[in-house]
């Protein structure tokens, strides 16, 4: 049986995600047939089983939006990989000058334009992440897959949401997962519960999917398949 085809494409951003993926290219090539700039066989015209897109989409860039829509049509499973592609990330703060040029400044996670199947925060996700994720997608089911599926239907997710949805409503149990997960130390513990230092939050979303309470809320709220309604209590 031939390996499934996977398109790797960076839409802009800092290249951190690309670098992280390049580091597992050999492993990746063992499970899928990779098509990308790095492997010299980028082809935006063919159909793919998977597409792994990194970087955000600029809402003022017609070409990119059309390209994204076309990729969606041609692809079975579309992954928004890394914080910018999945939840906006630090590029939400960008004020022009980045790719795609020229002075475009309205960046958004890919889910604003097309339907995404799995959205993975992380700035950037550790290299091994992509391999684990693809292996799980092949096998089909599980809590964490559901979580990344749920993230695919939202347009923002950050420390601010963690405060609004979990900490301030009193749902935080003080486990410390968010604090351990924040790459910029924007969260610190005060009286056993986290507090956000707003200027330090790069809106990467990592803390939210690591929080046991927030992940539960995300699945419950955004994953509306019939199984999930059963599992998460919709009909019980």
């Amino acid at each position, binding site marked *: 049986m031939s390996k499934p085809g996977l398109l790797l494409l960076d839409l802009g951003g800092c290249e951190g995600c690309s670098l992280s993926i390049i580091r597992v290219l050999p492993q990746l090539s063992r499970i899928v047939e990779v098509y990308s700039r790095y492997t010299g066989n980028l082809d935006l015209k063919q159909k793919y089983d998977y597409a792994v897109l990194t970087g955000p989409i600029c809402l003022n860039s017609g070409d990119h939006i059309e390209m994204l829509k076309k990729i969606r049509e041609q692809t079975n499973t579309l992954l928004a990989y890394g914080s910018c592609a999945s939840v906006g990330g630090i590029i939400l703060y960008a004020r022009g000058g980045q790719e795609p040029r020229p002075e475009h400044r309205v960046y958004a996670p890919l889910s604003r334009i097309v339907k995404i199947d799995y959205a993975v925060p*992380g700035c950037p996700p550790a290299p091994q992440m992509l391999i684990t994720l693809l292996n799980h997608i092949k096998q089909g089911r599980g*809590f964490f897959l559901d979580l990344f599926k749920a993230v695919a239907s939202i347009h923002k997710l950050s420390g601010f949401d963690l405060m609004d949805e979990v900490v301030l409503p009193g*749902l935080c149990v003080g486990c410390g997962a968010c604090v351990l*997960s924040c790459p910029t130390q924007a969260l610190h513990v005060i009286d056993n519960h986290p507090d956000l230092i707003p200027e330090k939050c790069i809106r990467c979303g990592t803390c939210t999917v*690591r929080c046991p309470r927030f992940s539960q809320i995300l699945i419950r709220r955004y994953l509306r398949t019939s199984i999930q309604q059963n599992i998460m209590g919709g009909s*019980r």
Partner: protein
Amino acid sequence: MIAYQPIVLDPDKPLGNYIVVYDARTRDQRVRERKKTGGGAVTSFVIYLIEKNIVDAVVVARRKKGLVGEIVVARSAEEILSTVGNRWSVVPYTLKLREILSSSNIRRVVFVGLPCQAQFLKQMKMFPLMESDFSSKIYLIISLFCMGTYAIEGFIDYMKRTYSIKAEDIVDIHVAGDKLVVKHSSGVLEIPISETLYYLQHGCLTCPDYTGVFSDLSAGMSSKPGYTLLIVRNKLVDKLLHEAETHGYLELEEASTESIEYVINKSREKMRKAYEYLSHIL
């Protein structure tokens, strides 16, 4: 390597995925002397892992004073023994923990925590979102059964107001049937658990996980007196447990249907309540 397994939180599978369930108890004199309730099997197991150099450190919570706890990175049997006892609050993992674990002479770590902590540790291990994560060092995740933890300030205040017991005078708290048994410096107090429900953490009321389905090994009080119920979720843990038994650290027997039914009922009950509560607040 631990194989991929889909992890589910599903009322039809209240204990999650597992391969075998044991009733176990310690055979280690050091643990027998210290333990308060249960079978002491987890303590014995992690002491085995440390003493045979299978792991370099055990991350576990210890009660400091009153109900306040701290996370310790234990590297010897003595340090592990100092953590024996019941815990009534979540002790947050901190940046300091990450710092300690980044040391190059710590390569393999066992975590003993609550189901909520097992969840993110497993995510860290399986789906590393950050390179600075200590994912590669997480060797085993052990989760202790959890019905919920108290919001410390509220609970302490309640004990003081209602029973004139100060936090620093509390020696031990454990559950016996539907009573909370509080041992304190001048006696023993029994209060119905129902009376203390207001002082549970709000977030625990939405928590559906009693045993810790994300862990490699779940452990807690068995319905068989003097035993710890062990839910083994993969072959590696099973192998290590049998080795610990061979070396005389603990004894294992396959759990009876009654022991398993008991924990299934508790898990179902917690899940049901959590989903009911969640549907009120979302």
